[in-house]
């Protein structure tokens, strides 16, 4: 009996890490499977947002004037601030993973909390921006009004009736096509914000687990997976910022 028990331990089954699930041989293999699965999920997300990017690009090519006018009407400074905040939160997330890798429990918790704070700042700025859109009637729907700055001037010096008809048609087109821009704006930034809210929710759980001492240099996979998700959300914004705020400002 005694010898048998020792023999058992000698085969390496006695000193298993408590987080190692029975279908995996080693912790390394378990982590590799998790990374692979997470990337498979993220790639479905890439194609999900990719479809929206495709729609945006196509409409931008179809209605360049309306898209430039609508895109230029958005306040650049909020978008720029949010870019800095979100890339900053990616840095703090990466440092949280690094702290978990190097057995720094307190640092892991602190970096995760800072990441959540920065994510919340981002969402707060988004609230200011959305409120601004409601104020200016730039929310698609029955109350949408596109008032082009030079519109009154163009109507005043319109001489003939045919000129007037053309400019009225152009104004109607602009009203419709800028609305398409703002539909895409709210869909894309709204879905991005939803991903961030989910990310912060996941981080709340992970922070609690980190605080409880569940992670170490041998097992920090959940922290790393949360990081992969958060960095993906950052990448989506890295594309959204130039597309919605920047192109053709000159």
């Amino acid at each position, binding site marked *: 009996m005694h010898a048998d028990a020792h023999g058992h331990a000698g085969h390496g089954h006695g000193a298993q890490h408590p987080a190692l699930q029975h279908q995996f041989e080693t912790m390394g293999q378990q*982590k590799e499977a998790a990374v692979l699965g997470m990337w498979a999920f993220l790639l479905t997300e890439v194609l999900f947002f990719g479809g929206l990017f*495709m729609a945006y690009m196509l409409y931008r090519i179809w209605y360049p004037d309306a898209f430039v006018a609508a895109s230029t009407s958005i306040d*650049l400074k909020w978008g720029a601030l949010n870019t800095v905040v979100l890339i900053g939160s990616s840095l703090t997330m990466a440092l949280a993973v690094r702290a978990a890798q*190097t057995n720094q429990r307190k640092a892991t918790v602190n970096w995760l909390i800072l990441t959540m704070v920065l994510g919340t700042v981002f969402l707060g700025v988004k609230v200011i921006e959305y409120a601004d859109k409601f104020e200016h009637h730039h929310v698609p729907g029955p109350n949408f009004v596109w008032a082009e700055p030079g519109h009154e001037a163009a109507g005043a010096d319109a001489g003939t009736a045919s000129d007037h008809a053309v400019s009225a048609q152009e104004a109607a087109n602009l009203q419709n096509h800028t609305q398409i821009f703002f539909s895409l704006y709210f869909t894309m930034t709204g879905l991005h914000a939803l991903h961030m809210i989910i990310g912060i929710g996941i981080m709340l759980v992970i922070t609690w687990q980190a605080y409880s001492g569940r992670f170490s240099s041998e097992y920090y996979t959940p922290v790393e997976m949360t990081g992969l998700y958060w*960095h993906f959300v950052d990448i989506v914004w890295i594309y959204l*910022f*130039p597309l919605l705020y920047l192109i053709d400002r*000159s």
Partner: protein
Amino acid sequence: MFGHVSPLKVYIGIFAALMVLTVVTILVAYVDLGEMNKVVAMGIASFKATLVVLYFMHVKYSSRLTKLIVVSGFFFLAILLTLTMADYGSRQWVNPPAILQ
């Protein structure tokens, strides 16, 4: 124990590079490059995304299988964008804009 631990310097350096590229992409938006405006903006964004994927998401230090999966995903995104663009680009030729209006 396992998994590559990047030095702090790498993370700070990548963050600094991302900040510099953000400033560059904002400044370049005020320069009129015609059709190249979109290409330059998307080029800078893709470079930033690549830095995040390689260093923040540790793909640079991942197994070849993970790298293959990541690359295949962006390959499928390229198929989505290219074939849809090709479709819409050639439809206008089949149905001239005059008939549509």
